[in-house]
């Protein structure tokens, strides 16, 4: 199992997902390690996972249980984990109970027994669980040849290393006890902790030291599942340098949007689409994903607010090919909603999917859901968390499309995920505005880093086929207030002889391309009879025509200017 050889010290793969990366390539072979932390932190499970990944019949693992959890109970619970291979017990993994020796507080006896077992079994790995129960018994007194706990640890460490054993002492320690001699003797110290905040529990691992290795600094979150520990290495900022991108743009799949973005989204950029509830954010995001799939790319969609089945069902309504694309393995939907997530865990899931699928587009729908899914402790640092998440994703070269819900009244609309704009390259904002007696959807491109873009407010609609960008709102003012006013300009020279109302209807038809009487009525808030008269007059004057195309549709007649 040794790998990542460097000089005379070989590395031992731990078998714990994420742990080797944190350790800088694995555990130094024959090292004497301490796994410390409070009760329930996962010390025993971590040690068990390591021994089952490494023990063989030829070089077995010896697991000494002392005064902590009774062996019977430990086996009963540990065998629930998928890594626990009952077939290895008795051949590759041996459990030995030292409770009688420890109860006598005779460290010499304990040491002799351990040494005898090591010499008999010639193990590759030795675990002492829980070491703390022995050290807690204090100094051995009275008996001839008595040794102190410090001597015991030194002798044990020397003996195990001489016998070419990689060893782990498990112990319950408080933070202030890190000056204990055991910490000095140990080659590696791994500190497990858990923080309870409201209803969430966040587990963290810190590599306090590893001789001969450069471990990843910081606190790394981990989760204990049916498969044991999974550690999510904290991505340091120096690993988030953005990969240089080819200067090409990705089509968004939303008709009309690419023009506003100067030809599409620059590859490798982070896009934020912010809008209120019901503004169609998910529709935009789905179209962005679908467009990638249509172009032959692989896509990862991360959802937090609804189950993947529901998400897919809604997506299929507009993009029937989604199911087929899923079958081709080019689409992965990740659902994360445990309410105690860490950013690193989320990132690990996404990066794994991106790597497996070779994805070029990642959709995160939505940041608001992501924030809620995080453990409370991480929500406090949401801005920093997002920075690391987006930085790490764009560093891989993928283009990230995120949605975010906006709150608050007009015009002080805010992103719920406060101050996220700095992490994004492109920001598109959606609004619901009221005019002509109805709510309309309006969007604009607010920011495009290093690129020109449209500054127009544009109407858009969510149709059965998805979002479609419509006309401008140049005849309105005060759009950002949410209640814009129509600016009734005098009839233009090419509208000679028209009233203000007739000119407004004509302008609306020019902008929409075509519209039914009902649609016009809602758009310009006209009284039906008055609108009928206006329409009849415009038809009579030859400004507009009435066509029968799946209902009566009025269209403006193209006229030469002047």
């Amino acid at each position, binding site marked *: 199992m040794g790998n990542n050889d460097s000089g005379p010290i070989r590395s031992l793969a731990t078998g714990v997902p994420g742990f080797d990366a944190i350790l800088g390539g694995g555990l130094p072979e024959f090292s004497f390690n301490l796994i410390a932390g409070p009760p329930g932190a996962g010390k025993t499970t971590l040690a068990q996972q390591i021994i089952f990944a490494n023990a063989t019949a030829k070089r077995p693992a010896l697991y000494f249980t002392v005064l902590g959890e*009774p062996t019977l109970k430990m*086996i*009963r619970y540990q065998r629930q984990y998928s890594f626990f291979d009952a077939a290895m017990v*008795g051949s590759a993994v041996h459990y030995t*109970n030292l*409770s009688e020796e420890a109860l006598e507080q005779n460290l010499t006896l304990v040491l002799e027994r351990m040494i005898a077992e090591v010499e008999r079994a010639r193990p590759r790995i030795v675990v002492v669980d829980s070491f703390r129960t022995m050290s807690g018994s204090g100094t051995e007194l009275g008996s001839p040849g008595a040794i102190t706990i410090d001597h015991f640890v030194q002798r044990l460490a020397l003996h195990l290393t001489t016998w070419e054993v990689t060893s782990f002492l498990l112990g319950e320690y408080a933070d202030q006890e890190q000056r204990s001699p055991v910490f000095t003797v140990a080659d590696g110290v791994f500190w497990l902790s858990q923080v309870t905040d409201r209803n969430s529990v966040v587990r963290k691992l810190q590599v306090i030291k590893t001789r001969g290795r450069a471990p990843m600094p910081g606190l790394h979150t981990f989760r204990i599942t049916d498969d044991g520990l999974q550690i999510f290495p904290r991505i340091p900022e120096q690993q988030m340098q953005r990969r240089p991108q080819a200067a090409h743009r990705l089509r968004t799949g939303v008709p009309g949007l690419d023009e506003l973005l100067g030809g599409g989204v620059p590859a490798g950029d982070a896009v934020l689409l912010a809008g209120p509830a019901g503004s169609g954010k998910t529709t935009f995001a789905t179209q962005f994903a679908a467009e990638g799939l249509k172009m032959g790319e692989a896509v990862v969609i991360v959802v937090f607010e609804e189950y993947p089945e529901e998400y897919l069902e809604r997506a299929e309504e507009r993009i029937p090919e989604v199911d087929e694309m899923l079958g081709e393995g080019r689409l992965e939907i990740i659902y994360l909603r445990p309410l105690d997530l860490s950013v690193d865990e989320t990132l690990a899931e996404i990066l794994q999917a991106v790597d497996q699928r070779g994805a070029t587009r990642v959709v995160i729908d939505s940041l608001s859901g992501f924030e809620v899914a995080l453990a409370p402790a991480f929500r406090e640092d949401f801005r920093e968390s997002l920075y690391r998440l987006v930085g790490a994703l764009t560093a891989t070269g993928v283009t990230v499309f995120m949605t975010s819900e906006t709150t608050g009244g007009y015009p002080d609309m805010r992103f719920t995920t406060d101050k996220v704009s700095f992490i994004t390259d492109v920001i598109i904002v959606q609004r619901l505005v009221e005019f002509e007696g109805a709510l309309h959807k309006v969007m604009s491109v607010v920011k495009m880093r290093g690129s020109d873009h449209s500054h127009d407010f544009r109407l858009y609609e969510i149709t059965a086929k998805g979002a479609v960008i419509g006309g401008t709102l140049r005849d309105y003012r005060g759009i950002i207030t949410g209640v814009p006013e129509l600016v009734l300009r005098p009839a233009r020279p090419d509208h000679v002889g028209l009233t203000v109302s007739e000119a407004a209807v004509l302008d609306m038809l020019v902008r929409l391309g075509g519209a039914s009487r009902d649609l016009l009525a809602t758009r310009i808030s006209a009284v039906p009879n008055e609108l009928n008269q206006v329409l009849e007059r415009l038809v009579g004057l030859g400004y507009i025509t009435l066509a029968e195309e799946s209902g009566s549709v009025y269209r403006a007649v193209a006229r030469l200017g002047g």
Partner: protein
Amino acid sequence: MTRRLIAREAAENGAFDDATVAHRACERAYHQLARWLGATGCRTLFARALAQTRGDHIALVEMRLGTSEETALTRVREAVDSYGAPAVARALGALLVEIVALLGRLIGEDMAARLVEEGIHNNARTDASPT
């Protein structure tokens, strides 16, 4: 598996009666399990099994758990005198079956078999000794 344990003892101690052979099998299982579970854990297991089996085997009523780390059961000789070797042999066989079953319920039959049978193939740290 219990039969294999007793057969092994019979093969090694053919000169003894069935009760002694069964008793040696119990002692060997005790020492084997004590290595894994500790003497306290092992005694607890034997105590429960004894309590479970006594109702069906009167020969077990007078037997007691050993007070030392080295001995699993005491007063076996007295039981033989009172109820005869065949009855004691049957009772101790039932006790072994109950121990393995109890262990199986706690950690799974495969693991229980593994822990006990390791004593058949490997030399136990301390050989069983008859009372």
